[in-house]
């Protein structure tokens, strides 16, 4: 019976199959090309860039002080002098939104970063180690999942606020505190995701091949497994940012967040909620800011996931 060696007699003489003139394209360039195809993601990336730049450099251009109380101009609608109107103390909303935006965005990204680092660490260790450590780490994750956020928020802010404030000043102190607290409560989903990815990728041939080639455990993780699980991590990251920004506004809802005179978007929205029917501009602009930021981050995340996930071929 004739052997079953495939009859394809192509002598793979080194030249990759698809001929043609395309230059060798590195994975990042490839990802960027696919990302460009996702129109909405590109538009959102632009919006995000505008928001971040606006918030970073806005206060330099729009130099109206953020807490100038002027009772004659209370609750004015948008006008040339105050493009986004004023609040009930006559303070200029555009200046406050730009100033507050810096903090809200920083909180969002920093909290997401904290959640990612912790999540990936826990997930990777659990994924690679398996057995006892895996069970222990997963027990810890379940534990954190079932803890109610609020009492812990109260305690942590109460325990550390004074010591931190004396060291780095009120605004920065509370900032670190909130980032750690929000970050500390959002890593569980990422950890679970990374662990699931590790379990599925660990069995794949290319990882075994790397092990066969003598790759050390860390090298396997960093070079082979992590890049492959980039897709879901990015998606989790984008949802984390959204959750962090919304969590910051809920903290203001309870008066736990930044000191009352620091106008983060969450705080502005909370202060304005009672005047929604009389002075809608006061609530709509911060609400719009939160919405635009979170929306664009999510679309960028969606685009990145398609870009980094070759399997999801876009027809």
């Amino acid at each position, binding site marked *: 019976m*004739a052997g*079953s*060696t495939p009859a*394809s*007699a192509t*002598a793979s003489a080194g030249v990759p199959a698809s001929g043609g003139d395309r230059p060798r394209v590195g994975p990042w360039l490839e990802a960027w090309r696919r990302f460009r195809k996702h129109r909405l993601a590109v538009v959102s990336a632009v919006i995000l860039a505008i928001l971040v730049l606006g918030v970073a450099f806005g206060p330099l251009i729009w130099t109206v002080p953020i807490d100038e109380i002027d009772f004659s101009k209370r609750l004015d609608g948008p006008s040339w002098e105050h493009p986004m109107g004023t609040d009930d103390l006559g303070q200029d909303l555009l200046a406050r939104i730009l100033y507050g935006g810096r903090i809200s965005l920083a909180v969002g990204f920093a909290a997401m970063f904290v959640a990612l680092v912790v999540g990936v660490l826990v997930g990777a260790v659990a994924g690679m180690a398996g057995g006892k450590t895996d069970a222990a780490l997963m027990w810890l994750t379940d534990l954190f999942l079932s803890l109610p956020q609020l009492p812990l928020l109260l305690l942590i802010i109460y325990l550390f606020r004074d010591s931190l404030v004396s060291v780095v000043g009120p605004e920065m102190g509370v900032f670190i505190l909130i980032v750690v607290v929000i970050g500390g409560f959002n890593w569980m989903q990422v950890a679970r995701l990374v662990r699931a990815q590790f379990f599925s990728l660990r069995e794949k041939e290319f990882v075994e091949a790397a092990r066969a080639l003598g790759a050390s455990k860390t090298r396997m993780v960093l070079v082979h497994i992590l890049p492959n699980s980039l897709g879901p991590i990015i998606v989790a990251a984008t949802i984390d940012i959204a959750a962090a920004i919304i969590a910051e506004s809920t903290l203001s809802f309870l008066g736990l967040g930044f000191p009352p005179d620091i106008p983060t978007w969450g705080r502005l929205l909370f202060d304005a909620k009672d005047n929604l029917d009389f002075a809608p501009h006061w609530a709509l602009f911060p609400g719009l800011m939160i919405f635009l930021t979170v929306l664009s981050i999510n679309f960028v995340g969606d685009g990145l996931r398609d870009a980094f996930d070759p399997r999801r071929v876009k027809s």
Partner: protein
Amino acid sequence: MTEQRLLDIQGLKVHFRTDDGWVRAVDGVDIGVDRGETVCVVGESGCGKTVTAKSVLKLIDMPPGKIAAGKILWQGRDIVPMRAAEMRAIRSKEIGFIFQEPMTSLNPVYTVGYQIAETVRQHEGLSKRAATDRAAEMLRLVNIPNPAKRVHDYPHQFSGGMRQRVVIAMALACNPKLIIADEPTTALDVTIQAGILDLLNEMKERLGMAVLLITHAMGVVAETAQRVVVMYAGQVVEEAPVAPLFARPLHPYTQGLIRSIPRLDLAATEHKRLEAIPGAVPSLLDPPRGCRFAARCRYAIPECTAAPPPLRELGAGHFAACIRAEEIAEGRAQPAGVAA
């Protein structure tokens, strides 16, 4: 067309839209299958054989794929313009399909019996009980031991070979007139492969159906085919009954294929290195003009690249798409080294 001809693919062109433009996977293919006949379509992976097979039952995703031209006549009726309802009456009822990957072709969450019964109930409206009995009957037919019990088992409880038998049972459940088998044995190891091929032949004898077998293993072709179609880069380059094809291959590509089969029947002394066909399959984005094999053909001459060589009948039912076929056959054509 004669009553005998079941399936007649005429000038089929199937193109796929990609970021870089249209890939012309199948670019003008004519294949015919008569009642009770076994036709093998052979060629390297990427030559369009699987796409051709899947197009018969419209199993390719459209978009991104589309049938650009040509007809697929099933007992005289053209399938291409058929709408979903008419297609459904043909799928598994008239033409059964056997897939390549047994490990993933069965739905993991349903029992084997349920999946076979599903086809029967769809086409013959049997009750649940009757359909399951038929399924058990089919399992016995494909030599799966203790079918009455196994019918309630799940796919993951079967080995690769057994699963392929289930797929075959599923394809034959409604007693179709034609079976298209897309490389049914590639994913299996050698010993199981033989069993599956024997089963296929046995089924052919017993149920009198025709088989269109897609493979890239010349050994399988020699074993089962009555007539062979050789495809290269989306086109048919040679078609002939199995014996003359192996005895006197006319197209240089077919000759290359046959020469690359390791021969056990030669004496140890006559062994020489296996020959490989140099070069690579051309891009199907903008295929070269003229004969697509010219770049790798040892007998290539400038005329080859002038116009696409027609499929000429050079013997009883033996066609080849090579303008120098006769010269090569009589040994007059000198191998002019590999054309630029």
